[in-house]
């Protein structure tokens, strides 16, 4: 069997790549995708730990995370659509009216 | 100590007055306020009478309030606090009789706030639990800010803010000190308490922590009094405040600081005071001279009076920092006399200003001829302020200085020089207002001389000032046995 920490490294890397995407992509859709990436990475981490512990909690968690991810992306996309209606853009640079 | 249930009356009555004020029609607010305050004064006298006569006997009352937070409503009227309570009762009664725009604009709010102020002041003077003291000490801000803000002469908010922020800054650090003291007490005994009697058990400790706590207390009270480097807020507020607020501030609120020093700082931190006594005395003495200089150059008469207030309170602080029972008593006497004097001066100044507004004089001059009786009264007030022998102030100032002298000759002499400058600026003040050729010939018909309530009250106070100038034993007798 592979060393589980290698799996974790993959998870962490993907997580951080997702984080980077959230931070520096301006297109809100890509930002949302990056969030999905982060959640996926977490899933991987859960499953790995679950395997390590001989436990099913991680698996169950993944199920819920998936659901949450779906729900979240639905709401997020709804928000993007609403924003697009008022501002005609999906660019995060355009939403800096509220500041200071 | 005698257990007494009457002390709460001193808190309940003004609170009641504050609430009921909202249900009184505007036109009769002055009468109402006068009534409530007279009854309140009578109550104070009634309650205080046994304390004054039976020397050394105090009244005590403890109500459980927030015992789980270490707060008890322990009230104590002893020979230290009784004078301050009496003074505040008297001053409040006089102030509420003053006529002015506060009885024309937002009247209900004014009376309500006034009684809330009286309530807080009484609570502060009576409480022997430090937290309750702090609570009331800070509650005083609220009506004060509103008064200055709403009825003040200027809409400049800065002065109010400065006053509030500086005082609040000091007092909140005091709160931290109180907490820390009660924490120390907790470490010692396992009980959380902020009662003065309990905390006094810490007073013989001489640790850096106590020094820091002292600093917290010192800052709070030094700002309130105010002492030299902490007086920056004072002038603007005094000048902009309406007369009642000014009188309250200079006659009573500054005494809150003095009282705090006498009641709490002195007993709690004897070691700290002794170790810093030189600096403290020097600060007090310097306050006297410095404020006198400021008063000399002040253009606005009210600013002059404000600075003179700082100067006189410097004397009081000199007495307080000299330590010792006699010096303490002297400081109390001077506090009371300064309270009465500043009451007279600010009161009369307000009357003059009102008259001046009535006749639109460009500058103050030669008014003595037009309002002779008013100016006779003012002159006696000025004399009291320069503490001429025969006035109450002289007794206080003399006692303070004579008791401060053995502690620090230099500071006493420095403060004594303030006496000279006191004469300079007060005479300047009087001369500016009263003497010279007046610029308006028709004033006499338009504005009347002092009369009615004003006259009665002022004559009464002046009579008191002179009477106590010769017979101060009332104040001295009760306090020697403390």
């Amino acid at each position, binding site marked *: 069997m592979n060393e589980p920490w290698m799996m974790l490294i993959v998870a962490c890397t993907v997580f951080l790549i997702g984080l980077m995407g959230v931070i520096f992509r301006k297109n809100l859709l890509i930002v949302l995708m990056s969030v999905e990436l*982060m959640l996926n990475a977490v899933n991987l*981490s859960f499953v790995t730990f679950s395997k390590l512990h001989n436990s099913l909690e991680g698996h169950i968690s993944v199920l819920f995370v998936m659901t949450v991810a779906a729900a*979240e992306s639905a709401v997020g996309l709804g928000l993007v659509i*609403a924003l697009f*209606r*008022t501002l005609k853009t999906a660019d995060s640079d355009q939403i800096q009216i509220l500041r200071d | 100590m005698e257990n007494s249930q009457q002390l709460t009356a001193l808190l309940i009555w003004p609170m009641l007055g504050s609430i009921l004020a909202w249900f009184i029609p505007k036109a009769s607010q002055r009468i109402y306020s006068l009534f409530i305050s007279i009854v309140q004064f009578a109550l104070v006298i009634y309650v205080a009478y046994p304390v004054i006569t039976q020397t050394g006997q105090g009244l005590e009352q403890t109500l459980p309030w927030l015992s789980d937070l270490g707060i008890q409503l322990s009230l104590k009227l002893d020979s230290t606090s009784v004078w301050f309570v009496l003074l505040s009762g008297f001053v409040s009664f006089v102030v509420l009789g003053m006529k002015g725009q506060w009885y024309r604009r937002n009247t209900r709010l004014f009376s309500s706030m006034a009684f809330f102020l009286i309530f807080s002041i009484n609570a502060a003077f009576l409480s022997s639990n430090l937290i309750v003291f702090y609570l009331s000490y800070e509650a005083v801000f*609220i009506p004060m800010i509103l008064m200055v803000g709403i009825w003040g002469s200027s809409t400049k908010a800065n002065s*109010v803010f400065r006053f509030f922020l500086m005082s609040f800054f000091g007092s909140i650090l005091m709160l*931290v000190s109180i907490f820390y003291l009660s924490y120390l007490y907790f470490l010692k005994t396992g009980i959380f308490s902020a009662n003065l009697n309990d905390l006094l058990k810490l007073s013989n400790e001489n640790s850096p922590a106590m020094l820091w706590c002292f600093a917290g207390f010192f800052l709070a009270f030094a700002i309130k009094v105010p002492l030299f480097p902490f007086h920056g807020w004072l002038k603007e507020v005094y000048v902009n405040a309406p007369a009642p607020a000014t009188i309250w501030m200079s006659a009573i609120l500054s005494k809150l600081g003095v009282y705090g020093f006498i009641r709490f700082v002195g007993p709690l931190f004897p070691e700290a005071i002794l170790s810093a006594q030189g600096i403290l005395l020097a600060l007090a003495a310097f306050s006297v001279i410095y404020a006198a200089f400021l008063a000399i150059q002040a253009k606005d008469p009210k600013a002059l009076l404000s600075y003179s207030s700082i100067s006189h309170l410097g004397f009081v602080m000199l007495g307080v920092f000299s330590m010792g029972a006699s010096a303490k008593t002297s400081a109390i006497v001077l506090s009371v006399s300064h309270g009465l004097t500043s009451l007279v001066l600010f009161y009369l100044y307000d009357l003059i200003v009102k008259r001046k507004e009535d006749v639109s004089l460009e500058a103050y001059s030669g008014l003595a001829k037009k309002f002779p009786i008013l100016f006779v009264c003012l002159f006696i007030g000025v004399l009291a302020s320069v503490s001429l022998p025969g006035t109450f102030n002289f007794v206080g100032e003399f006692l303070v200085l004579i008791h401060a002298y053995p502690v620090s000759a230099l500071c006493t002499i420095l403060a004594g020089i303030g006496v000279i400058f006191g004469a300079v600026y007060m005479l300047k003040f009087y001369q500016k207002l009263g003497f010279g050729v007046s610029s308006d010939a028709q004033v006499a018909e338009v504005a009347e001389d002092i009369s009615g309530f004003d006259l009665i009250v002022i004559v009464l106070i002046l009579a008191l000032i002179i009477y106590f100038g010769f017979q101060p034993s009332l104040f001295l007798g009760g306090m020697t046995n403390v």
Partner: protein
Amino acid sequence: MFDSSTITLIFPWIILGFGIMATMLASSVRIETRLPAKLLTIFTLVLVMITSAKLFNLDTTITINGFIEVSHLSCMTLFFISAISLIFVVGSGGYLEKEKLHISDFYNLVLLMVLGASVLVSAKDLFVMFIALEVMSLPAYALVGFRRNDSRSNEAALKYFILGGALGAVYLLGASFIFGASGSTQLSQIFEWSKIHNGDVLLFLVGHILVLFAFLFKAAAAPFHFWKPDVYEGSPVAVTGLMATVITTAAFVVLVRLFHMVDFQSQSFVPYLESLKQLIRVVAVLSLVVGSTIMILQKNLKRLLAYSAINHTGYILLGLLGTMSKPEQIYSVWFYLAGYAVISCGLFLLLSQSETRNDQGLELVDLTGLMKRNPLVTALASIFFLSMAGMPFTVGFFTKYTVFMSSIASGEVVFVIIAAICTVIGAYGYLRPVALMVMRDPDPTAAEFNGTKSNQALIIMLAVLCLVLGVFPQALIQLTKGMELIP
């Protein structure tokens, strides 16, 4: 697995669930008719309050499957959250009407949010926490963006959503690390594990810190506070009020649980306690400073209140700091939360009555000279502002009092002094609107305040509550003292 006794324990949630479904049905019939939804919501919340009040006399803490805890803490918080929401539901009708937002969905979302918050405060499992957090947050995102045609509202919602989503993922990563380290997601088991664990704790620590970050974000503690002013400013006032009360309360309950997740007596975690305290110190001080200093520069009232909320977060963290070594002091945190919620509930309801001349939201200048035009509102607003500043004889004083006391008792004098100074700065910020209202002459372009009688009565009630609690806080303190934290 759910026997009858368990059912009674989770009865409030069941009611909430049915309420949500009923409201949804009611709203789906015709979207213009919102009275049924509103009544249903009120009815549900009242029922929840009653049922949770019934659970007050529960003398033991019951944990259902190790996931959900029914205790004094959770019942009180549940009661409290539903009461606050009830006040908002009752009080914000006029506001929604005015803003043309009055649709049934609002009530549905509020109920969902309450459900999430109420589960969150009872959650004893990292995963329940996450789901409940999302149940609470998703409606909150929608509510923030409820003014769909307003780009500011949209912007606020999106910011909140993206940041919330990212931090949610961070939370999950942390939770997975904790799960990896301890083998469980249940707090009680983690606690047990921490007692006996002896070895490398790095994985756990990283997970724990990540989890804490996520909830510090929800609680808007600096430096995780950035979203708060923007979101407050962009969202409808009633929603801001709900966020300031319900979400803050729930977030702090969880935060407290998370901070006390491990047994600090345990050998492996002894050094960790000190570091954790350091973290709280830094975060608390940062929150205090950021909140108070930026607050005094604000022109927009909601933004000001957002920074004030950050400032308050600092105080609560200070109380939390006190509890790290003295867990019995935890009541100070609860008390602070309750007091703060009462104040901000009143204040936000009051603000929701305003009618400004522009869409920028209520600016500070809109309050100019309010006393001459509307003395009642001025009085009420002053009471709330002074409460926030911590003036005596208002509840704000005792909330600060308990928090200071709690951290002094843990020897954190320096931080209390910093907090005290920040209080002064903050007081300036709260006094500015009061001074504007009281000291200035009326400005013809200033805002109008028109509320219905019932709303006014509600606000007056809250103001009186502020004052009453400022004089007699014992009852509330006694209640909060019962809210012990069980690991």
